[in-house]
């Protein structure tokens, strides 16, 4: 499954490269400044990365479950739209609204709608860029199993990627990262030991439009 996902992503990255390979017009390296903006559309698979249950007793299960098989999940998907404005020549601040889904072993659907503030730092700039992002926000999480429970949680994200600007205004980014979703129960709750920090790893291909 992972192999197929990587092949698709590489093809997605390679096709635009081939399309613009013959364009010999030198691309002018853009320097960002305050007020510049970026619009980004992202999509790709999401790999359930881990469940960490710090208060779970060993008789009730393992504290740390890593990757889909152990988590009883399947590879899902993630898509989002993002808008950011530059604060200075290297930092951009904005927001992102997304949709994450993944099925569990019993084919019940887990969905998460994250909305977050996102700060991106771009240390390497030019035709090839390396954006590093952190995000903080909320996530509305739902599950189709049982009584179809849902809850609103906080959300933290970390991301890194490699961008290639094949046009002055347009670029594509292959990125990955970690979305952290805590499900917290107070000490008086009968299931306080079910408190879980969930990690999901989206691997996304993004299209970015930037302008002055």
């Amino acid at each position: 499954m992972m192999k197929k996902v990587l092949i698709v992503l590489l093809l997605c990255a390679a096709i635009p490269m081939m399309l613009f390979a013959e364009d010999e017009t030198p691309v002018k390296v853009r320097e960002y400044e305050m007020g510049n903006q970026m619009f980004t559309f992202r999509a790709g698979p999401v790999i359930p990365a881990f469940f960490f249950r710090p208060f779970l007793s060993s008789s009730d299960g393992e504290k740390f479950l890593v990757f889909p098989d152990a988590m009883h999940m399947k590879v899902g998907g993630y898509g989002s739209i993002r808008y950011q404005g530059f604060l200075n020549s290297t930092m951009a601040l904005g927001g992102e609204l997304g949709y994450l889904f993944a099925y569990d072993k019993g084919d019940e659907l887990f969905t998460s709608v994250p909305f977050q503030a996102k700060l991106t730092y771009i240390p390497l700039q030019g035709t090839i860029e390396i954006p590093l992002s952190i995000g903080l926000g909320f996530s509305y999480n739902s599950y189709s199993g049982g009584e179809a429970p849902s809850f609103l949680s906080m959300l933290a994200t970390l991301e890194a990627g490699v961008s290639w600007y094949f046009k002055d205004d347009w670029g594509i980014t292959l990125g990955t990262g970690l979305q952290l979703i805590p499900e917290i129960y107070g000490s008086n709750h009968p299931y306080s030991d079910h408190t879980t920090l969930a990690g999901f790893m989206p691997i996304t291909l993004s299209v970015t439009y930037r302008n002055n």
Partner: protein
Amino acid sequence: MKRKFKHMVIPVLLVLATLLIVGCNTENEGIFMRISESVEKVDVGAVTLLAKNGDYLFAKTGIGDFYKYNTLTNTWTDLNAKDYRYFSTVGNYIVIGKKAVDDTADNTAFVYDMTDVATPSAIPALDEYMLGMSPQSNYVLTKDPGTTDYYVKKINIGATAYELTDALNSSTELSFVFSADPTLISNDSVNFLLSGQVGTTYRHVLYNGTGLTEYTTSTDFPIVGFTFDGTELIAVTSDGSIWTDSTTTLIEASGSVVIPESNPKTQPYPVFTHNNELYIQDETYDFFKIDAAGTVTEVTTAWTDEFDNIKIKSYLVDGTTVYVGTQTNGIFKFDI
């Protein structure tokens, strides 16, 4: 610049505090916990266990078929009996029948010999208006079309003929009057309970293998699960109320269980009996046991954990082993 950061600290702290508060989930047992305990679906649908013969379990499934399940290899075999609704167990035989429609008797029924299920035999002249069968015992609910007269009968299987006879094997028909179709429940080969509406309340009649007990207490809801150990009755009505008996009087206990609204009001709800206590899974998949005093106690042990994320359709008790037919996850078993 310093000033800007100073101004940002307060809103950031406020956002963090808000996030922490809304991140606390108090509505359920934990979505991520449930996911980590999820179980692969089995595509036979809801499993109503009928009988066990040797290494095989026999079951009616949600996809409308009659299956046998090999408990050693965990494999299903379709016994090709489609469109049948009622199943009853008679010794080594399983009887399957269709539901009567529009007051028309349907005598299409078959007998399967569990020791040789490849050769089903039709039941001749089963000319009755069938309303239900008890899956794990030999009781059939019938009705006189166009009347309010209901009968509980049993199937007698002879060498060459099969017939419906009175449940008590007496010359007098075991008949009851209800104003709407009653619920027939039986969890073993001996007892059955008939619970049905008379006017605006529900009437309950217990057969204990030797005779009938007509309870003088009517309730606002039908009984959907019960156990009877020969002297004590423990019953649950469709609203989750618990009832015990004192001779012919039903007494409501202080405790209750939450039965999911998805369970039809007049359909039996899955329960099983162990050590004269009634075991039941509630709406949130937690298990409770109810003793003869009507005391409700939550059961938390290794086998209950296994069903944290599994909705149960039926039980079949075989000594200390309990086989469990589920809504979407096939068959499980545990030792109690």
